[in-house]
């Protein structure tokens, strides 16, 4: 979170450029949408007792369990006006999600964009995404589910019945899938990461150049981490 916001601020100040990141959450963590209530959405006591971080995102959307062994998160950060950052928010979700769809296709998984912000394979969700526009930038980030521990996910998350009742599906396990459940145990997280890198490059017609944070960006990361993303004032607001 802090890295993404640091990069956005650097881009705003003309000190950095469009960035695509892939990362895993270590330790595993729960992130909630910026409009959610941590206590309503997350079993915080369980998380603290089991070394699972809890954090509020700067993007809307729902609560997500980020399993270190179970998913890869991407974030793409673009300056306002970039060709990949159309003004229409729904159009931009569809455009940027095409990177994941192309990456999954490379692995042999057929998937499609499901508005507002999901990617599904068959009828099941395999990726969730969220977007914010601030600091003169667009940030979209999301997860691709590699391997799903449903029992643990719904131990840490408090999923209200109201959210699923209109889909007439009572078993939450029927609503989500994973790369491993489709392709089997031979696929690795490294395979998924390489596929996603290929997918974003191909679908968005972008040349990816490896880079690292500048010293200024690193300093800002530490400031944001300590003053915002690790602070109860932020994480437990609302």
């Amino acid at each position, binding site marked *: 979170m802090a890295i993404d916001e640091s990069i956005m601020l650097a881009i705003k100040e003309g000190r950095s450029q469009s960035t695509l990141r892939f990362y895993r959450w270590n330790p595993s963590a729960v992130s909630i*949408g*910026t*409009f*959610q*209530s941590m206590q*309503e959405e997350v079993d915080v006591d369980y998380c603290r007792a089991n070394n699972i971080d809890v954090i509020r995102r*700067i*993007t*809307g*959307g*729902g*609560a997500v369990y980020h399993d270190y062994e179970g998913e890869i998160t991407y974030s793409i950060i673009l300056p306002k006006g970039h060709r990949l950052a159309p003004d229409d*928010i*729904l159009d931009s979700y569809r455009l940027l999600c095409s990177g994941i769809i192309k990456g999954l296709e490379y692995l042999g998984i057929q998937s499609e964009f499901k508005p*507002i*912000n999901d990617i599904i394979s068959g009828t099941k969700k395999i990726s969730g995404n*969220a*977007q*914010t*526009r*601030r600091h003169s930038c667009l940030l979209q980030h999301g997860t691709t589910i590699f391997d799903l521990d449903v029992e643990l996910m719904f131990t840490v998350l408090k999923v*209200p019945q*109201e*959210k699923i*009742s*209109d889909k007439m599906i009572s078993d939450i396990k029927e609503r989500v899938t994973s790369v491993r459940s489709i392709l089997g145990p031979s696929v690795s997280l490294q395979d998924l990461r390489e596929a996603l890198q290929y997918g974003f490059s191909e679908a968005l017609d972008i040349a990816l150049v490896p880079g690292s944070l500048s010293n200024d960006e690193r300093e800002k990361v530490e400031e944001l981490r300590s003053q915002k993303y690790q602070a109860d004032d932020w994480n437990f607001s*609302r």
Partner: protein
Amino acid sequence: MKFFAHKVPGGKLIKIKLDEEDGRIKRVVITGDFFLHPEDCIHSIEKDLLNCRINSIDLLNRIESTMTEMSCQFIGATPNDIVYAILKAMES
């Protein structure tokens, strides 16, 4: 506080926590998994709803006025959905 959770058909979940006094909003917290751009608009909506009469017309006018002033956009919910959830919270 009064409470109501509303799943927007084909959209997102809105949760309302509400204190009222004499038929007006004393405090309101709007949470959920919707999107609102820019995100800070939620604080303005909640602040501008203070002391608003709790009826559909006044609530909708207040929310839409704030959103117009701040050039906000909901994704996965609408001002009408917020109004509906507030009115249902009052019934609880």
